[in-house]
């Protein structure tokens, strides 16, 4: 139907293609290899020279070489992950620039960039990046709009960008309907490419060095909001993630993977439970955070024998979930099995003889295990231990070295030492890794837990009570538990050392701290309402806000909104297309013509008033004088120079036309 030769690329659109593409690619800095940017600069340069007529398009030989070389470079420099897939996509968009000569090539480039702009969200989801991406989308839409203006438009850039913004705003309502109501189904297939970027967080092997490193990071770990039961005392905020049951002599690790139990359906918390909601950052692991004793409320979250929560899939996207904590003092359900007893008493042979001797000595002074544990805890308090993030390097028997020689360390050292000593005298014990404390936002009522809140403590088995929590760090640095890491390190000054520009560092500057907290609040709301809106949240939203009990109902609403959308559009179109009311002069003239039509005088296009009137005279010569005078009057009024009595003249003209019309009617009658 249309032309055989494809439509050519509008010249004025090219700079915008390059601009919008640069803008989109800029957002991927750090995620794709840097040489891709060099390739981009080359392609832009070449295409611009082609645009100016200095260089021809690359021939197919050059194109083939570039494509092969680029693909080889990407394959050689990266693994099969999200980054390399993105690099491929970006490279495709860049190379397409070199052969962009038709309008259809522009569509391919712009659409690819839309996709890349979407891919950026797989790497970055903060509110800042969202705003940056909005501008990217706006630029891309502008490019499309510009390509459809003809070349001769003046002031088209302003009009184009305005048009693009209008388009975005007009499509916003429909987008929101779809966003909230479109059924959120689970992933279509399990294997999706994931980013190779190392995620900060706990690991299932505890090296003291790891925790020291985490302590330097202010990255967000998770945020918590509590139900009406409120937040527990700060000393109770122990967020459990991992149980490290196996000691190798150098490190503690999670060896034993206990059985998981999955709830059959979603549950509401009972009145004896404190429920809280966690929005957790991606960890790349399948463990979740909870306070003991935890209960799972969601179908997708299992709980194991150690009371830890797990998901089926590793958490690669921010996850929002609800957990309950039993508030009743329940008796331990069962005793340890032989296997468990063996696991929690495991020790490597021949390590730390001095620590074992100390434990045995204290055991002989104690009547019960509880008394012994008290004595062990007291030991940390009485001896001059100090809390530091910069401990000295320990020898082969590191617990001995730590207890009797350096006497300085942080949570991992204390927890490891206590567990070791308890196990050495036959008391089942385990190291628990997770986070402790957090920062409470009073106005918005939520708790922020950051990586530097990472902590390790001890759980000890007592047949009468079950697993009891012992935190030897509290004996050494009570501030760490009561006020957080910053206070604990106030003297040493090593809090966020080397992170000169971290806002966490300047909590003492009042306005900076206020700003930091407001920014954090915005981010929190962003995560809570936008980023963590998933299947579960959608169900809640549909049930509570819209009163739906079946997801199909949302499809009806979507269908209804389509109808409403098109109805509104039709009404607006109809409104626009209504014939504008002609001026009184034209109205009178048209009436005259309709009248004259009955006398056999058909109006012709491109006819002047005089020509028409002459024909009218031929049709009814008896009115010659009247018609002629009217024609003269009209011409005089139409072709006069601007005169002050224009209005009066117009009225007179209209009167004459009306009079003539009447005369013609009389004649007919």
């Amino acid at each position: 139907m249309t032309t055989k030769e494809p439509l050519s690329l509008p010249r004025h659109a090219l700079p915008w293609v390059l601009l919008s593409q640069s803008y989109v690619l800029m957002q991927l800095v750090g995620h794709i290899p840097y040489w891709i940017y060099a390739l981009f600069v080359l392609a832009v340069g070449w295409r611009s020279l082609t645009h100016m007529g200095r260089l021809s398009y690359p021939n197919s030989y050059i194109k083939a070489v570039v494509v092969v070389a680029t693909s080889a470079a990407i394959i050689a420099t990266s693994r099969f992950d999200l980054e390399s897939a993105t690099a491929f996509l970006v490279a495709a968009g860049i190379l397409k620039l070199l052969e962009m000569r038709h309008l259809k090539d522009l569509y391919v480039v712009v659409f690819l960039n839309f996709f890349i702009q979407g891919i950026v969200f797989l790497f970055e989801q903060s509110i800042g990046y969202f705003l940056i991406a909005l501008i990217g989308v706006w630029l891309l839409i502008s490019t499309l709009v510009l390509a459809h203006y003809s070349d001769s438009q003046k002031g088209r850039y302003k009009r184009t960008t305005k048009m693009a913004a209008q388009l975005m705003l007009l499509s916003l309502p429909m987008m929101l309907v779809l966003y909230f109501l479109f059924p959120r189904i689970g992933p279509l297939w399990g294997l999706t490419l994931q980013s190779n970027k190392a995620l900060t967080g706990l690991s299932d092997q505890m090296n003291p060095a790891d925790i020291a490193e985490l302590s330097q990071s202010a990255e967000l770990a998770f945020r918590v909001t509590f139900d009406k039961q409120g937040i527990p005392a700060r000393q109770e905020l122990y967020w459990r993630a991992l149980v490290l049951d196996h000691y190798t002599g150098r490190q503690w690790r999670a060896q034993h993977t206990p059985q998981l139990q999955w709830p059959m359906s979603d549950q509401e918390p009972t009145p004896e439970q404190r429920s809280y909601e966690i929005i957790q950052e991606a960890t790349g692991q399948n463990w979740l955070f909870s306070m003991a004793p935890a209960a799972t409320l969601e179908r997708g979250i299992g709980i194991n024998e150690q009371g830890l929560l797990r998901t089926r899939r590793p958490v690669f996207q921010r996850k929002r979930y609800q957990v309950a904590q039993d508030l009743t003092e329940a008796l331990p359900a069962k005793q340890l099995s032989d296997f468990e007893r063996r696991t929690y008493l495991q020790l490597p042979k021949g390590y730390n003889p001095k620590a074992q001797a100390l434990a045995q000595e204290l055991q002989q002074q104690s009547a019960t295990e509880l008394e012994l544990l008290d004595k062990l805890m007291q030991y940390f308090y009485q001896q001059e231990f100090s809390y530091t993030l910069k401990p000295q390097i320990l020898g082969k028997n590191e617990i001995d070295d730590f207890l009797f020689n350096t006497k300085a360390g942080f949570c991992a050292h204390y927890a490891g030492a206590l567990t070791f000593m308890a196990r050495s005298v036959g008391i089942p014990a385990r190291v628990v890794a997770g986070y402790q404390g957090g920062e409470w936002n009073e106005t918005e009522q939520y708790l922020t837990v950051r990586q530097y809140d990472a902590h390790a403590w001890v759980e000890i088995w007592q047949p009468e009570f079950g697993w009891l929590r012992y935190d030897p760090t509290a004996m050494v640095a009570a501030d760490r538990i009561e006020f957080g890491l910053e206070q604990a390190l106030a003297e040493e000054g090593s809090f966020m050392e080397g992170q000169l520009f971290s806002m966490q560092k300047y909590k003492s500057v009042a306005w900076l701290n206020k700003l930091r907290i407001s920014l954090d609040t915005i981010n929190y709301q962003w995560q809570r309402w936008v980023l963590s809106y998933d299947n579960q949240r959608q169900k809640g939203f549909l049930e509570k806000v819209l009163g739906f009990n079946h997801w199909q109902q949302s499809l009806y609403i979507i269908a209804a909104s389509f109808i409403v959308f098109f109805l509104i559009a039709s009404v607006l179109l109809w409104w626009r297309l209504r014939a504008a009311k002609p001026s009184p002069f034209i109205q009178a003239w048209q009436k005259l013509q309709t009248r004259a039509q009955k006398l056999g005088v058909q109006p012709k296009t491109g006819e002047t008033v005089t020509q028409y009137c002459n024909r009218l005279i031929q049709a009814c010569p008896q009115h010659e004088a009247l018609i002629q005078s009217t024609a003269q009057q009209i011409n005089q009024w139409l072709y006069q120079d601007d005169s002050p009595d224009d209005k009066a003249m117009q009225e007179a003209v209209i009167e004459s036309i009306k009079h003539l019309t009447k005369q013609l009617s009389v004649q007919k009658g």
Partner: protein
Amino acid sequence: MINAKFWQPYYQKWLNKRIPKTNKIKLSHRSVFIVPNAAGGLYILLLVLMLITSINYQNNLLFGLTFWLFSLSLVAMILTFRNLAGLTVIAGKAQPCFVGEKSALPVLFETSSSRHQGIAFGYAKDISSYFDGNGETIQKFLYYSPATRGYFDVKRMRVETRFPLGLFTAWSWLKLDFSALAYPQPEFVPFIFSEGEGEEHTEHAQLTVSGDQDFYGLREYQPGDSMRQIAWKQLAKGRGLVSKEFEQPQANSCMFEWDSLAPLPVEVRLSRLCGWVLQAHEKSWQYGLKLPGVQIPLDYGLKHKEQCLTALALFNGKGA
């Protein structure tokens, strides 16, 4: 097999009913069609890919962007339609021409108060002219070379737009009525003079018009005066366009007759008559035309020539 050719007559019939021939049409839902084009198809593919990606990564921002781009296409559809609807297309005053010549047909696009951007128009296979209108009336030309004499029968003209995003094509097929005439293709052959009948036919003595006519005087130039009549010397002296008038050239009057070309087919006769009319006009003769049912008396001038040519163009073979 049923193919496009089979449907063509039905389609044309339907189209003629839906968008009849007219000299002025305001495009509306009746006359504007809209479908997603190839770029629209590519866009749908993009949306599907984005949706799959957002589902697999459970990424809300990507979901949002996907839905936004989808809604954008709906809005774009409305705007593409709106961009064409409301445009008034008017057939301008076209000049008559001879069969075989090319005539420029003025098409007026009245963009009313609203904006109409990136509008293309042309015949089906040749849509190349683009314009933007911001409330003014724009004149463009459509080229037409008539294949047969009579009123112009211009093919349907396509007006289309892809503005703003190029995802949809909105178009209309317009049959504009230019009501201009195509005269028969002139064939220049020597005059044939019929014998006998008397003075109103021809006096063949002075066939070649030359300077030996009697000069009578000068008068104001009138449209239709032939080139040889113009007093070039006067013009060169800066006295404006002035025509030489000759003494009534009795001899140079002739009547062109249908019957004098007796055995020839209709169209050939018309072509030759047309050629004679043109030659006679060029030579500033007085001439008349005698067709079955039509008789145009001896006269000269531009208006007279047009009258004769019109009669030839509209000749329908039988007496009126």
